[in-house]
């Protein structure tokens, strides 16, 4: 493989990772406020279908994205309403919605499978794209990819460097304390569940309009679950999450390359590879042995190592909040 090919592969990994990054950032915002939106797989399928359909009918990509965002918000609204207002199990609601989205998208999109639709135009950023190597990989893409990159930074900045971000984290970590400081916890949760849902919807459309163009039954089934896994792997941090998304894309690309190199080994082994790796990664970040390993390290290293290797979920994740 020569350099040009390698750069092309890396660029495609970045492209492939962009919808996952958007979905992961959305879900991080939701979960950091204390709500689990487990419906990602269903809502992404549903929004991918809607985005494709609306884009095709109106001949406008951006209307497709807008419609997809609305669909994502509707799913998120059901999760929020069910868990915050009706006090239901977030897991049960999310899971049922996953199945519902899967079936409903198959049902509503059945007449539009394998059709040509609109696609996001390619747009290389002038100047930046001429940087050798890096420019080709990151800046010779399209607007959705740039949006995903900007979103990583924006989410991180919003969470860690702004007043509203502090309120958001307070609602997810110590809702009682946040409430005592005058924050309307449930309102925060509504806002960020809806915002996260909109981003998840955009992620779905990013698949059907940009990365895996078109629509077919069960088009991107499984990607929602991957996004949820990456949120955990990323320790609820957008930067680590983006890293996880790229890593996942890289293992998939690696599997393709390895398969070409070793045609005698069964396809199954390579197809399962990303998933098995994912389990091992989750195993590594959660295990007690990792903790022991960190404790065995010199004092100065422990803090940074812990930040890289360990994750801890928002304290109040998935638990309903009642005032007073």
């Amino acid at each position, binding site marked *: 493989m020569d350099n040009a090919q390698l750069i092309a592969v890396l660029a495609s990994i970045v492209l492939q990772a962009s919808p996952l990054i958007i979905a992961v950032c959305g879900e991080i915002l939701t979960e950091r406020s204390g709500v689990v939106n487990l419906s990602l797989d269903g809502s992404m399928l549903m929004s991918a279908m809607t985005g494709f359909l609306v884009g095709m009918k109106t001949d406008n990509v951006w209307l497709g994205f807008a419609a997809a965002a609305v669909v994502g918000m509707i799913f998120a609204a059901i999760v929020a309403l069910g868990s915050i207002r009706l006090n*239901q199990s977030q897991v049960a609601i999310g*899971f*049922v*919605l996953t199945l519902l989205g899967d*079936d409903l998208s198959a049902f509503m999109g059945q007449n539009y499978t394998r059709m040509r639709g609109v696609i996001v135009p390619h747009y290389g950023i002038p100047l930046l794209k001429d940087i050798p190597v890096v420019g080709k990989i990151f800046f010779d893409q399209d607007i959705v990819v740039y949006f995903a990159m900007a979103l990583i930074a924006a989410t991180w900045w919003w969470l860690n460097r702004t007043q509203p971000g502090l309120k958001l984290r307070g609602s997810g970590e110590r809702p009682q304390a946040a409430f005592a400081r005058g924050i309307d916890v449930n309102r925060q949760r509504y806002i960020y569940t809806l915002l996260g849902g909109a981003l998840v919807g955009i992620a779905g459309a990013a698949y059907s309009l940009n990365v895996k163009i078109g629509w077919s039954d069960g088009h991107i089934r499984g990607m929602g679950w991957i996004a949820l896994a990456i949120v955990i792997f990323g320790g609820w941090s957008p930067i680590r999450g983006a890293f996880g998304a790229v890593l996942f894309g890289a293992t998939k690309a690696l599997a393709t390359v390895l398969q070409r190199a070793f045609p005698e080994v*069964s396809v199954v082994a390579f197809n399962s590879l990303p998933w098995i790796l994912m389990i091992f990664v989750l195993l590594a970040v959660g295990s007690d042995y990792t903790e022991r390993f960190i404790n065995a390290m010199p004092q100065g290293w422990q803090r940074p190592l812990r930040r890289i290797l360990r994750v801890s979920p928002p304290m109040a994740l998935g*638990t309903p909040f009642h005032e007073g």
Partner: protein
Amino acid sequence: MVDVFIKYPRLGRLFDLALPLLATLAALGVGAIMLQLLGANPIKAYGALLNGAFGSTNAVADTIVRATPLLLVALGICIAFRAGVINIGGEGQLVAGAILATLIGLKMPDAPGIVIIPLALIAGFVGGAIWGGIPGVLKAYYNVNEILSTIMLNIIAVQGMNYLLRGPMIDPAQMEVSSRIPQTARLAQAFDLPRWVPTRLHLGALIAVILAFLVYILLWRTTVGYRIRAVGLNPEASRYAGIRVRRNIVLALLLSGAFAGLAGAVQVYGVHHRMFTDGSLAGFTGSAGFNGIVAALFGKLNPIGAIPASFIFGALIVGANSLQRAMQVPAALITALNGLVVVFVVSSDIFSRRLARSRQIGAEASAAETGTNIKPDIGAGSKPAPTGNVPAEAPPALNAEGEASK
């Protein structure tokens, strides 16, 4: 309305019982609107659905056959969810059980059926237990979120199934022809589960119902079940009480997977008599691994409640097929309808809980006025110790994602 229930507590309890039914009707009402929008007459459509599900002895038998794997999976889900573990890997566990059970039948084609059938069912049980035990160990000892690990094991299971059915386990007859349909040879006739001729109803249904009662006894009448439920309700308190939390989490997932695996074995020996794949999990399982979760939730995570719940879903699935044939309505609509039913039933739960609370508050208020003592069983609001007779509420750990129960 609440006042009426305070006056007549029995009426309130009756209302609680009727609520899932009302919710189902409401969901069907929404479905009727969807049918109308599609240009189909809802009354005719539901007529076709009912006829398809219950219209003849054969139809009822088919309904029960479809409900059997749902019930078996649901039993496992009851155990897992009661322990506070969210097992979404029913599909993969079902396939793992089916593969192991099929292997038994393929390796010993000449053995008598009376030996092979129990052996195969046990193999299914073990296969599912292995596939369920992996996420159990990962969760208990390595803090891996079980929702994610079970989902990933589903995907690994489908890869493994496709590999086995296209290679090592493929029907030798299919190797000869060019089409090479990925399926195993038909298992010997002697291994078919006994069935009630001329219908397709087989012994598996009876096994599932008996197991439902056994699981009920396990969960509410034995120490093992008590520990499992205690871990689900409050892992911290259980730890202080000397219950080995980790071991019980593994046990719950082992059992949960085992029942799904048994469902796989029953499907192979009772229905298909071989394994086949269309590349996806749902091709073989018919999404029983997922629908079983829905049935369990519908039955309020009570093994006995899962029996009618699975039956209703079996009826919806069988009825949907005939509805599709009669009215040219896509069957996907019915799967969407299934989802609606569950959403409605799950959310109806809150109304009964809220009613119970206001009933209790109202009763206390009126008792305070008249100065009389209220009996403890005035409403469902004051609940006696968790004997399974009362539809007990889901463990609180269910509300949280996996880690929260640590």
